[in-house]
């Protein structure tokens, strides 16, 4: 073995130690903030708290190990119907809101990108909904959708938006799209700004129509940014809670999401089943994210690093 190679390896292992030392605070923090709650939630989901009363009417304290009972209970009887309804709502909201937000968000990004006059005002205006806290925007929409609200005045009919039915789903979707399309717009705008202008110039010289330019140049080049935006939105939408909770209310079948079911169980002091619901939601979110990254190749971190190495 040559000295050079040995020296190189020594340097690498020294650098490795240094890297490990420098990274360890991050890993410790991640372990505490991510690892511990995850493990604790999994542990909690296999226990159940006592709800039985003793003779003098006191709750018999202490939780007992129940194995996977909390999970199997979710898929049995009445709670199965509730679970699949919530699962369906969660999925439906995610698919529809993200699809609408992508279309509207891209349109917003193009407007923000091409606005020549009032550029600052246009951008600020579009971003305002994203800046409003979700619970507050849900309250605003509740006023709009109440029986004597603006929505009914505009359509000239009395629709009871917050009652069970398709109209409640519609209200949630509308409010969510209003709020988060600007987020997609913002990320896409960042993608648009790195497309060099000469590509468009070349296309114009070749006589490509604006429509063709959009499909053949803008969209492919903005795709990495768009996919990241969609991934974030999908993960966010799967955890949707505050908007339907404040806008429509709790325990409304039409809009109940998985997060709402987990919350509802926890506030009834059934932490074991609540943890089980939350774990299932976590698995659903994680699997979706994985599939998304693998199939659509959302360039989150991996591909960028790969390119840098080459």
């Amino acid at each position, binding site marked *: 073995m040559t000295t050079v190679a040995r020296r190189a390896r020594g340097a690498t292992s020294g650098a490795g130690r240094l890297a490990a030392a420098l990274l360890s605070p991050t890993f410790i923090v991640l372990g505490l903030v991510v690892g511990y709650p995850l493990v604790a*939630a999994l542990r909690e989901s296999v226990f159940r708290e006592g709800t039985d009363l003793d003779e003098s009417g006191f709750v018999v304290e202490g939780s007992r190990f129940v194995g996977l009972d909390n999970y199997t209970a979710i898929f049995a009887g009445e709670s199965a119907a509730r679970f699949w309804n919530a699962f369906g709502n969660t999925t439906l909201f995610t698919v529809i809101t993200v699809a609408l937000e992508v279309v509207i968000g891209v349109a917003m990004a193009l407007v923000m990108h091409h606005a020549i006059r009032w550029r600052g005002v246009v951008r600020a205006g579009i971003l305002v909904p994203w800046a409003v806290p979700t619970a507050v925007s849900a309250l605003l929409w509740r006023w709009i959708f*109440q029986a004597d609200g603006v929505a009914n005045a505009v359509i000239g009919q009395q629709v009871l938006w917050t009652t069970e039915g398709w109209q409640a789903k519609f209200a949630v979707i509308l409010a969510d799209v209003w709020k988060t399309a600007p987020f997609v717009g913002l990320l896409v705008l960042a993608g648009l700004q790195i497309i060099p202008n000469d590509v468009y110039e070349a296309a114009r010289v070749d006589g490509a129509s604006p429509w063709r330019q959009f499909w053949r140049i803008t969209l492919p080049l903005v795709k990495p940014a768009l996919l990241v935006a969609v991934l974030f939105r999908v993960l966010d939408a799967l955890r949707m809670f505050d908007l339907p909770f404040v806008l429509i209310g709790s*325990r409304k079948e039409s809009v109940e999401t998985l997060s709402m079911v987990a919350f509802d169980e926890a506030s009834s002091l059934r932490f074991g089943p609540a943890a089980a619901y939350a774990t299932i939601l976590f698995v659903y979110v994680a699997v979706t994210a994985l599939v998304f990254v693998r199939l659509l190749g959302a360039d989150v971190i991996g591909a960028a690093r790969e390119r840098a190495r080459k």
Partner: protein
Amino acid sequence: MGVRTTAARATAALGVAVLLASCGSGGDQGGEQPGGALEGRGEVTFATGKDTSGNMQKLVDEWNASHANEQVRIIELPESADAQRQQMVQNAQVKSDAYTILNLDVVWTAEFAANRWVVELPASQFDLDKFLQPAVKTAQYRDKLYAVPVYSDGGLLYYRKDLLDAAGLKPPKTWAELTTACQAVKATQPAIGCYAGQFEKYEGLTVNFDEAVHSAGGDVVDSSGKPVVDSPEAKAGLDALVTGFQQGIIPQKAITYKEEEGRRAFQAGELLFHRQWPYQWNLAGKTDGSSQVAGKFDVAPLPGLNGPGSSTLGGHNFAISAFGKNKATALDFIKFFTSESAQRSNLLATSQAPTLASLYDDAELIKQFPYLPTLKESILSAKPRPQAVRYGDVTQAIQEAAYAALTGEKPSDVALKDLQSKLQELLK
């Protein structure tokens, strides 16, 4: 990073719950022995919902001025009742001594007592005979006193006196009379809605459903705590609301009404009759233009099927946390807060219903709050909501059933049968 962040977020909220639960599950049986002495003097805290009038602080200041070594500090919890309960429960589960005195909604007594989160109070040290007896019942669990009633509440039938007078009618005592009065008034006022209560799917629906059942002579649970909602009386009560919606006596949009939506409708002159708490009296009587009905309304006891109805009991009781320090001071403070002078000052400042019977007969107070005699009648004939350790599940079951019947999703007898079997499961 996206995945990890999501994982962190998804579990963060849960983590809190988990931490609390794992701390709560271990440990000893905790707390004071029933009937044990309440000992220790010194600083205490008082956990309560928002002090909207500022009168709580005024009374606390008054107490603090004469108790230099036993200062009381108010801890304001969020405005919504659910959030208040959640904070108190979380504190109890970690056995925190942060809260000494708890301002409990009347429906939480059983849950807090059965979990030993609050201590039993010496009933002999309070002159309970002078309190409104239905209010005292809400502070008991299995016949033992765990809290002291401070605020009471009963439903009233607000009605448009001007319109009834014009039609030559008296306030209705039965639902049939209410319907007749409604038709008579509609002849000249076709646009007016007849009746509304609180029918959105939340605690208010439980209140209104219980009232309908009780006012028809039925019961939700009998005196031994067994559910009895599959009775013909209970069906008659629920049907009164269901047919009200079907026949348009209750406006369709009332299914979205909580207290405030209904109040706005009543104040805008859209309703002839409105089932509401006493707090609406002052607001609907304001002459600054916010109310169209100032001076045009009055209150009557709630109507029923064959005679006067019976209200659902509301209100708040003060209890002492099992994990708080200085319980002797806490007990004295509760005595001070439930005294006649404190309750009088509360009524004057907040118009919240007191729990001492004598204040309802006080000529001076009646002059200022003309509804007091009606309210007393309402509270004395009021029925509590089911006293259940798992009250949250009970009220949700009631809301599911009532909402399904009111929206026509289920016939009322099916809804009640389902409710009966659910309550049997929950209350066994």
